[in-house]
């Protein structure tokens, strides 16, 4: 099992962000922001020492939910202070950005890191479309075309043009080209049948990052496997990444209280504005083309209401003592057969001391016991 360290880099010095969209930035104190960025980057760098295989960065806009509107800047800072860990961009929100720019910046990161980039192509969550004033209706076709164009930028030896539905370029030849050949490893969302289908087409690792139960995650994994086999190849464990929140302490009570408190802040304070924007998108657009996907939101909402004890019972969190964490990781592996696990430790306003405590427990106890799982 390999592990990825994710950290949304939230702005935690707010007591009540409210439900407005966008969240007013008058609450952002730049001096406190300086300290937070230092702390968060230090944490990401420390993740390599802890034994994480990948260090993750992701893109979110106009909210204290995350301070990485451009995750490539964060990645560039981490690359200079690490040597071996993969740099997971999970990812750039492809339909919002010029795909040539994504191809260029990802190629830069791959070269700067000596070939450590895991290139995430994400469609983003609904509020990002409101933030950038992009029609969510076109997000799927825009995503598909942009992914093809980005890969073309990396793999085409001759200058080329692109005449498409959403993108038109007459002459492209990016510098630098990536180190990894034919192109960097890809990661995409596995949250819906449409997303899984696209990921399988590109042979990308799928991220099952917000699972509501093992059964639905297994359905997505099975769909991916079926599509791969129809295309004539066999996916391995490395094509599946499962995400879970993680809190470890000497006692289960302490670990649970840390996770519960951080989650309460995350949902109640950080998540308010983006849920407002999400509701508007769901009401007014075809962002979710499939009814099944649209119905995920009640499932996710239900997960928000689910008591932590029940989430632990279902095996959807890594929470408790080190021995419990080991058992939980092994259980998830037995259920889903994935080869990658994405752990989110900084949930909401989880104190830095608790973040470090969990990371140290992973380093000293958990990782040595689950590496060979």
């Amino acid at each position, binding site marked *: 099992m390999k592990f990825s360290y994710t950290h949304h880099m939230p702005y935690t010095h707010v007591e009540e962000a409210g439900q407005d969209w966008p969240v007013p930035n008058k609450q952002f104190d730049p001096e406190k922001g300086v300290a937070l960025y230092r702390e968060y980057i230090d944490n990401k760098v420390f993740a390599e020492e802890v034994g994480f295989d990948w260090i993750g960065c992701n893109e979110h806009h106009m909210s204290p939910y995350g301070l990485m509107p451009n995750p490539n800047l964060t990645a560039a800072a981490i690359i200079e202070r690490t040597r071996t860990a993969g740099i997971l961009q999970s990812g750039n929100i492809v*339909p*919002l950005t*010029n795909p040539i720019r994504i191809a260029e910046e990802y190629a830069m990161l791959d070269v700067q890191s000596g070939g450590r980039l895991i290139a995430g192509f994400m469609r983003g969550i609904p509020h990002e479309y409101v933030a950038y004033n*992009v*029609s969510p209706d*076109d997000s799927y076709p*825009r995503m598909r*075309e942009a992914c*093809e*164009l980005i890969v*073309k930028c990396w793999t*085409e*030896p*001759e*200058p*080329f*043009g*692109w*005449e*498409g*539905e*959403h*993108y*038109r*370029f*007459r*002459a492209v030849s990016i510098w630098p080209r990536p180190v990894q050949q034919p192109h960097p490893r890809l990661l995409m969302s596995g949250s819906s049948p449409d997303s899984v289908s696209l990921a399988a087409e590109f042979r990308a690792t799928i991220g099952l990052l917000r699972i509501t139960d093992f059964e639905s995650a297994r359905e997505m994994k099975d769909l991916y496997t079926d599509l791969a086999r129809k295309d004539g190849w066999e996916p391995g464990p490395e094509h599946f990444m499962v995400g879970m929140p993680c809190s470890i302490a000497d006692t289960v009570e302490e670990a649970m209280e840390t996770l519960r408190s951080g989650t309460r802040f995350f949902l109640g304070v950080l998540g308010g504005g983006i849920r407002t924007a999400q509701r508007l998108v769901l009401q007014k657009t075809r962002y979710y083309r499939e009814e099944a996907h649209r119905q995920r939101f009640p499932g996710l909402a239900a997960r928000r209401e689910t008591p932590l004890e029940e989430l632990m019972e279902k095996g959807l969190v890594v929470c408790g003592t080190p021995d419990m964490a080991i058992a939980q990781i092994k259980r998830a592996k037995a259920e889903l057969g994935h080869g990658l696990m994405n752990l989110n430790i900084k949930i909401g306003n989880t104190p830095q001391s608790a973040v470090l405590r969990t990371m140290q427990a992973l380093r000293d106890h958990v990782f040595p016991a689950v590496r060979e799982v």
Partner: protein
Amino acid sequence: MSFESNTARLPSGELTYRVAGDGPPVLYFHAAGGARATAGLELLARSRCIYMPVIPGFDDTPLLESVSTMRDIARLGAEFIDGVIGEPADVMGQSFGGWAAPWLALDRPDAVGLMVLECPAGFRPEGHPPPSSDPELRLKQMFAYPARRPPETRSEATLVRNREMLHRYHGAETRDAALIDRLGEIEALTLILLGTKDGRMPRESVQLLKDRLTRAFLVYVYDAAHSIETDQPERFANLVEDFLERGETFLVNQAGVPAISATA
């Protein structure tokens, strides 16, 4: 815009051709399917006068004894420019026709303005298998959107004979080594097109062209298979029209044509 059928008397013999549109002349070498008025060509005929000779033997036309190689077809095209168009013309070729067009540009540079090669045949990389002859697979490789094909009015016998013409003109060859060796001599500014879903033509063949031609642009047409004109007629016509109108300055964006569609 409908194509009219005419006949020309040329030094090599009598030649049927189709013509449509207004504007500067374009000589168009058709593909192995024969001389068809695709949606893309009809759009292009808004701004160009398109001359489409029916290559001898295709679409039930008689063979011409002196025209039996791809280079002969190019020579026939030069006779057509001299005898019918009467002035240098831009030249286009699709697939099979894209093999003849570079020979014309090579042998008669004085007769050729700009050149457009759509998924051209004749440049298949060594070791690449020839395109499939399985009808079902062939259809899939040819068209991303088969429903967009124009209605077929020709008989099955005519279509079979069209396919047999390939052997008359280039035998079993899929790679013209003599032409490849001389691509660097071609002076005509060239636009090379390939559909992103083209299952008939490997992209290495157009990359080779882009590498060897001294003045060329390669553009991938998104969501089009081998028959770009049929799968994406608007994209095809807008792109080719712009290239023929502006030449190499088509690289420079013009107001109203954004690189990223308006909702981005």
